[in-house]
């Protein structure tokens, strides 16, 4: 069984009367890319700040690498790289100097700067002032800074926020490769399901401060409830015909829908419909999109 990297126990943070994070039990295992998903204002950043000990929980506990965070702050932080919301950068310094500032604090070897610049492909722009960087480059510099200390755990809060599609793609590929190449565990937050869908192996969905789903991305997809859709002439008659055969089906949007999607069954149903003289024009498996599942979990009408 993989080791638990992050574990929060009943983690709660209140701002006055408002509960920002409510009894959150997060579990991130070693080697996972954990997608931390939720609408804006759901409590993602507050949670992440508590994981980094930037703000203190009202109650509950954070355990990282199986140690209590408050008592072992320095030891734990030494193994974490982080990028919280917008990247921090000193605009009046070059990319290289920005990393050197952090390298001195971490007492990392000098050649590590070249390594991380190489990983995020900023080597060529290393000697330009960061205020001249594009947003994507700044974001990549932020990731380089997070990687500088060779962390075992990387915490990235909205790393693709504000990037163009090419930039998003680039960061995504970068993140996907890190666990494979460097054995890191990654927590990445986003308010975009499609983002998490393409990167994460585990998903935690937070809504109004509460964890409403936490499992593998496959489990989330399984909840998609695949159905068989048959487009056919005179669907009403076809449904009656199927009912007589003992097959449950219903009409929706000028097509008939069956709960089972087994290949053989689909073929059999197709044959019997055709033999009965119906004209079947389409036979397809339809899944709820993750977006639909997400909306179902968080309640309708919440924007992503």
């Amino acid at each position, binding site marked *: 069984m993989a080791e638990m990297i992050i574990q929060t126990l009943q983690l709660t943070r209140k701002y006055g009367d408002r509960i920002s994070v409510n009894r959150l039990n997060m579990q991130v295992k070693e080697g996972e890319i954990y997608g931390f998903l939720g609408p804006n204002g759901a409590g993602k950043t507050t949670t992440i*700040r508590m994981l*980094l*000990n*930037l*703000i*203190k929980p009202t109650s509950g506990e954070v355990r990282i690498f199986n140690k209590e965070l408050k008592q072992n*702050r*320095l*030891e734990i*932080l*030494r193994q*974490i790289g*982080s990028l*919280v*919301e*917008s*990247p*921090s*950068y*000193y*605009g*009046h*310094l070059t990319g290289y*100097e920005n990393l*050197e*500032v*952090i390298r*001195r*604090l*971490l*007492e990392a070897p000098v050649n590590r700067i070249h390594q991380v610049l190489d990983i995020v492909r900023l080597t060529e722009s290393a000697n330009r002032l960061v205020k001249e960087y594009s947003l994507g480059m700044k974001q990549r510099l932020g990731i380089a*800074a997070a990687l500088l*200390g060779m962390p075992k755990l990387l915490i990235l809060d909205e790393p693709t926020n504000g990037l163009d599609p090419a930039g998003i793609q680039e960061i995504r590929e970068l993140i996907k490769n890190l666990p494979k190449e460097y054995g890191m565990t990654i927590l990445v937050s986003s308010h975009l399901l499609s983002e998490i869908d393409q990167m994460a192996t585990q998903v935690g969905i937070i809504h109004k401060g509460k964890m409403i789903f936490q499992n593998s991305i496959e489990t989330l997809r399984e909840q998609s409830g695949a159905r068989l859709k048959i487009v056919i002439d005179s669907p009403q008659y076809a449904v009656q015909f199927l009912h007589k055969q003992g097959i449950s089906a219903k009409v929706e949007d000028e097509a008939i829908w069956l709960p089972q999607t087994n290949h053989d069954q689909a073929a059999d149903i197709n044959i019997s419909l055709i033999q009965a003289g119906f004209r079947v024009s389409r036979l397809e498996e339809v899944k709820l999109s993750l977006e639909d599942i997400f909306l179902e979990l968080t309640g309708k009408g919440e924007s992503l």
Partner: protein
Amino acid sequence: MIGKLLTSDQLKMKRTSLWLVTILVPFVTVLLKLAESLIRYDYYVKEVNKTGDWWTTHLNILIGIMVFAVPVGITITCSVIANTEHQSKGWKHTLALPLSRTGVYVSKFTWAVICSLISALLLTVGLALFGLCLGAKDPIPWIILFKNSFGPYISSLPIIAFQLWLSMVIRNQAFSITIGTVSAMVGLFLNFGDFTRWLPWAYPLQSFAFIMSEKGMVPNPDLLLMNLLGLGIGIVLLFIGAKDFARRDIY
């Protein structure tokens, strides 16, 4: 711990206006004094003839400039140091690194002190040059110039501690700069009250090498006392500020 923080902070300060402020404050102070001495050249010739002491006679007005320049310089220095982090949104990143928060604070404070001491040193040298420019006949009184420049800065340690805390804790630097400038002026008046002269903002004015008395400029008997008070209270305030900073939530 503190060593790596200091070298890291040093690099952060590169290309900021911190160095400009550090140099500009003593430079402008000496320049103002030079202008004043040139404008009232005849007065000073007469005055020096009367007192027979070129340097002390000239230091009189200088004190009036410095008593304002020192705290305002400190205010801006602290503001630039803190603002480098505010502007870069660097706090959340710096403080997510494996560093002692108290150490982070002490490092910033140390740089504010270093810059103040550099200013004091430049002022000492600048005044010596000023004397040479105006053709002072007496030899340069290094000890007096040294005391006169470093004295007010050392006594301002509580002001450094307070201004740094303000600038670190409140993002908007207009606030700390306003407080720093206003309190520099208030400090002049605090000096006249028997009780209020013991408040830290009154220390700079009581920490020059000379004070005005009925007999003209006489050596300041309180200089050492004020320096020690400044050091003591400054360190206490540094400690309180650091503790407060360490327990704050970072956004």
